[in-house]
């Protein structure tokens, strides 16, 4: 049945809109196009790790892993830190499906990106847009760490040439070759971080990596 659905022309349609269809069926009840969607909470985390090369794809199955939950969130527990273990970095980089589920202690990023409340069955997830998501993707320890790992990855794969680094970063994040404009914008940004904001080269590249992991095109699937 999966094959039948996935090979149908309906399933394979693009999500591009057109004025006529939008006027006739704005909510796509009749599936004249594929619904554009945002990545789910777990997909966002997995995608970040896939893009910067950290994702541990090799290990499947086995016991759950514990991601790092900030101390201020653990503080909400009556026994802060109780029953939330410490996994090694390799273990922690496994897919989100392996993250331990504890109803009263949800990984903040998952919660922010509409992972469902674990007390109820959830037929369809909400897709909210709220500033806590942006704050998480910009400022969280997770994002900062993964942006740094991304920068190291780029330096290893693309050497020290900024054009090559930016091109590779966007290629991995957007899953398509970037345009010249997009590359140039990134290169100029990195230069400006250094000349105007007095950041060193590493910090500048890391900030560009952070940007690449915040792009709408990274979060939304056509």
């Amino acid at each position, binding site marked *: 049945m999966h094959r039948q659905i996935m090979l149908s022309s309906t399933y394979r349609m693009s999500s591009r809109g057109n004025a006529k269809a939008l*006027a006739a069926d704005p909510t796509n009840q009749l599936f004249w196009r594929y619904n*554009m969607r945002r990545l789910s909470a777990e997909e966002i985390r997995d995608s970040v790790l896939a893009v910067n090369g950290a994702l541990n794809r090799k290990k499947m199955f086995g016991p759950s892993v514990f991601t790092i939950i900030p101390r201020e969130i653990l503080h*909400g527990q009556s026994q802060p830190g109780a029953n939330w273990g410490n996994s090694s970095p390799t273990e922690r980089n496994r897919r989100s499906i392996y993250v331990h589920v504890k*109803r009263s202690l949800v990984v903040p990023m998952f*919660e922010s990106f*509409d992972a469902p*409340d674990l007390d109820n069955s959830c037929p369809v997830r909400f897709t909210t*847009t709220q500033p*806590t998501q942006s704050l998480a993707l910009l400022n969280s320890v997770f994002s900062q760490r993964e942006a740094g790992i991304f920068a190291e990855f780029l330096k290893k794969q693309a050497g020290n040439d900024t054009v090559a680094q930016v091109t590779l970063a966007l290629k991995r994040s957007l899953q398509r070759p970037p345009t010249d404009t997009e590359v140039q914008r990134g290169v100029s940004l990195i230069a400006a971080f250094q000349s105007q904001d007095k950041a060193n080269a590493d910090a500048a590249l890391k900030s560009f990596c952070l940007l690449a992991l915040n792009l709408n095109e990274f979060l939304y699937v056509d």
Partner: protein
Amino acid sequence: MTQPNIQNSSFCGRTRREFLWETGAGFTGLALSGLLDSDFLSRQAVAADGKTKFVNPLAPKDPHFDPKATSVIFLYMYGGPSHIDTFDYKPAMKGMDGKTIDVKTFGRGGRKAKGRIVETPWNFKQHGDCGQWVSDLFPNFATCVDDVAFLHSMTADSPIHGSAMLMMNSGKIVSGSPCLGSWVNYGLGTQNENLPGFVVMLDPRGGPISGAKNWSAGYMPASFQATIMRSQGSPILNLKRPDGISDSMQRRLLDALRAYNNEHQVRRVDNSDLAARIASYELAYKMQSSAPEATDLASETKETQAAYGLDRKESSYFGRQCLMARRLVERGVRFIQVYSGGNHNDANWDAHGDLKRNHDIHALETDKPIAGLIKDLKQRGLFEKTMIVWGGEFGRQPTAEYAKGTGRDHNSYGFTMWMAGGGIRGGVSVGKTDELGSAAVEDRFHVRNLHATVLNQMGLDPNRLSYFFNGLDQKLVGVEGAEPIRQIMA
């Protein structure tokens, strides 16, 4: 407005409002305008330029009727403060200390038919014009009784912390339902988009049993969840710009991000999620400075800080939180919950061991700050619009839990809470427990009546405010509904 009970909605049987959340509080095409409320539309400002104003699911909504209060501060005495030792004076217990009597109780120790009386170790005196009895635990708060309505006949369904906490916070003894603050924000939206609409502040010793379940939005979208705010350091998770990134660098990054996002959006202009997300970065940027401003207590005068007990070590932590709560109210935050007590046992009001030691500690931490808060709200003209609720998940038993010692077990058969401000009458006392305080006997109220009162004062009809989930128009007060406690309304 509440959700209408629509049977003919076109999206998986859900209401229109849920559909809007599904699409990220936006809409997929202008042709939808025929389906939407005009007040909703007037709040939209979609433009393809990417500088779209953020469409906030917490945008202000009209209440059902004129509200008395616009904000709630819930001072949560976690662990269950003993009513018998605080506000419910029981002269009949005098001289009975140590006597074993027949009295039905139900606590964590199970159901008992008799017990050994523990007389209160504190003195009670009458205060104010209303003559409310208050124990020596609260010398400062005692001076405020003429502004307060006491509920002496509260009852709840469970004498166990986890389920009792969930009931007091969400109306159900099992987890998964939205909390009081979520309901308030769902019904009214928030007045200040730069701050969360539902704030929780925790005790330094830890959170309450069940943790985040006590401030969860349950089956409502994550927008209605509480935000934990700290009273020291960076107030909200991820609010602080990381070390090594200057404001100008972040600004430059955000501008570049918007440039990329604008290009992406040009060929996907019908997806308003994209515009909303672009706008949410601007809001996040603003929050980085507006939220810390709200929590910056250095700008408060020395007198004010002292009035909240900041000058004394024991009361300074809770005092800071109360002062922050006042500031948040001034800035339009709808619902603020401050926990006194955390973790387990004597780290909170759960006095199973040494009753005197336990309550002396927690009263010392909270008495001055609470009095300071009430007086400060009054002098700033905020008291009428701010509803304060005080209490825990249950009270305590008149009899000892163990063969030896003064510790009291939990008691949900009858306990005391109080309310003040927000159109609540001052200097009144309603309901009664029996002569020992073992159970409410007159004018018995349930937690859902308290919840109904909170919603009512905020201008929401508790029996009308509903959220469709799981085939039911869910209400905070349950399908049976509940009446607000009208005796305490001005």
